[in-house]
């Protein structure tokens, strides 16, 4: 097998894992065993997978509430993720975090926040620390297009540029913030706007293409590693509703046909043979993770008042 083919398979497998995990969440959700708001990334997997594959294991990612994909792509343990969604002690954060606050510091996922844009400065703080200590790691701030409307995003760009910290701003542009479309929310183009701060940027329209995302991230990460903050905007598409497990096309704020073209290019749909080949083993992996969650006890009362300070 050629090197490219092997790389493609590796990325594809992780992307498929993310999709099947989230599809499993959709199946489980009506049972109320997962009582946590879930923001699914079905349709957006290529971004997480391509980007994380381009990072070094010790590069840090600071994420958002839509983080199942990044958690898995960065190498977080699946069983502990399901236990977290179930609110069980076996969870990454003993059930106190749930879906919106996933983290896996041991593999460099440094927490996810449910307050839009709020972890962007954390990436800069970590990058500042890397620079001070003279090591070659980078920090990645992952956020949606909506997050760039917040003041803290602008404060963060300005400071990152002034301090020349090794940070990569990674925007997943699914064109939506909850139900509102980007053109009614933003008067600026993200990449042009970054230039106003002296920050280099790039937009990648082929966000379904894991290899293209990986290449773009490798280039952007190299710039960041050299102390040049970089804004990388990647077009993507969210298939499901903003929060929850349903489709919401019938509400009319968007049309199913809006994402038809995207679905045609989605390798997780298009590459049927590979999906069929890889699915059984992945399903078994997911079953084990779910079983782990099911068997993990709920946190005891004593947990209520631990780890406060």
């Amino acid at each position, binding site marked *: 097998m050629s090197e490219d083919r092997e790389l493609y398979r590796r990325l594809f497998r992780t992307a498929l894992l993310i999709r099947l995990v989230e599809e499993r969440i959709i199946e489980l959700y009506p049972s109320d065993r997962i009582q946590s708001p879930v923001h699914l990334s079905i349709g957006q997997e290529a971004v997480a997978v391509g980007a994380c594959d381009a990072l070094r294991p010790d590069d840090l990612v600071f994420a958002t509430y839509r983080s199942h994909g990044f958690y898995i792509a960065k190498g977080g343990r699946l069983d502990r993720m399901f236990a977290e969604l179930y609110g069980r002690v076996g969870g990454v954060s003993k059930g106190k975090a749930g879906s919106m606050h996933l983290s896996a510091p041991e593999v460099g996922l440094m927490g996810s926040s449910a307050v839009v844009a709020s972890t962007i400065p954390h990436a800069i*703080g970590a990058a500042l620390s890397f620079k001070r200590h003279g090591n070659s790691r980078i920090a990645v701030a992952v956020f949606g297009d909506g997050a760039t409307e917040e003041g803290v995003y602008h404060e963060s760009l300005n400071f990152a540029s002034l301090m020349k910290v090794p940070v990569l701003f990674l925007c997943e542009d699914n064109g939506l913030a909850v139900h509102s479309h980007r053109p009614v929310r933003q008067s600026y183009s993200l990449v042009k706007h970054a230039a106003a701060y002296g920050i280099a940027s790039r937009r990648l329209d082929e966000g379904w293409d894991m290899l293209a995302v990986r290449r773009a991230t490798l280039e952007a990460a190299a710039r960041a590693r050299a102390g040049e903050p970089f804004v990388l905007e990647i077009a993507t598409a969210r298939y499901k509703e903003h929060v929850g497990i349903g489709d919401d096309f019938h509400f009319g704020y968007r049309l199913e046909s809006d994402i038809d073209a995207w679905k045609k290019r989605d390798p997780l749909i298009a590459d049927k043979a590979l999906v069929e080949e890889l699915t059984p083993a992945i399903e078994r992996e997911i079953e084990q993770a779910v079983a782990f969650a099911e068997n993990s006890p709920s946190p005891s009362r004593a947990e209520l008042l631990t780890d406060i300070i």
Partner: protein
Amino acid sequence: MNVTAKKPQAATTRVLSYANALLETMDGALAEHPNVFIMGQGVDDFKGIFGSTTELAEKYGAKRVFDVPLMEEAMTGIALGAALVGDYPITTHIRADFSFLAMNQIINLAAKYRYMFGGIMSCPTLIRVVVGRSWGQGAQHSQSPQATFAHYPGLTVIMPATAQAIVDMYPQIINRHPGPVISIEHRLLYNLDFTVAEGHVPLTSYVARPGRDVTVVATSVMVVEALRAAQYVQDTAGIDSEVIDLNSISHPDWDLVAGSVRKTGRLVIADTSWLEYGVAAEVCRQVVLRDPSMLMAPPTMLGMAPAPCPTAKSLEDIYYPSQHETVDAILTQVRGADHGIDLPTERSMTEGYRRFRGPF
């Protein structure tokens, strides 16, 4: 003015201003801990946050002590990010009011990180905020947000009232406190000299002056005021006041407070902020929950008038409780409203207040 909180042991005392105590601890932290850095608007300028960071940038370099743009929320978020990877950031706000722009990071993130992630994240960091007063600080440069911050579990909120409290508590915090700490420093204290003894100020409440007749629980600059008032009532009426420096707003020593009230039966509370939903109300809650029968009279509370702070000097003078009122409150608790003791004539509070010449 030289204020003594604890009986000094002659051989081991020195005189130190609040500002110099801050400078000494900031310097010490940078010298001892390579992971400490200080950032904030103006930390490297010639004024150095009222003298508390002066010349540290020259001494430790711009990587350790640096100015930032106007970016309160991002600065706090950046501090958290650095703390998450093992650095110890110290951030400053020359007015506590500006930390309100960072409320999101402070309350939604810093306060929650350890708990929300089940103990695997921690962001130890010191956030210094300064409360302004006098010289026309007005409504947006004088707020004292201890009750707001202490309301949220996960934050440690302290109000050092003396140089002693600074030199004792700041190193403890920077060395080993696992979570975010907000220290509310009072601008009027900066210029005061204190006798600093060997000893130890805990990260909770302590007795600043032992006494039998009445318990005065105070915060920040009101501790200084309470000590002066205690001296006055001792001299004029032989009343022996016990002054408790609440010191930690988030984690006070309620047993100490309750024990004192049980002994004296009388309670005066003097805070630097509004009374409504505030620290004074919380002190009452704690005492009443333990045993309301300890109180021989309803407690007296001193705080700011329930209004935004007026700028006009004439109004500001009556906005804050004066020494006159503090003394009257203690006398009234012990002897009743017709105590017949002459009150101090000065309306404005500390000597520091009179010496304070602005503009900041």
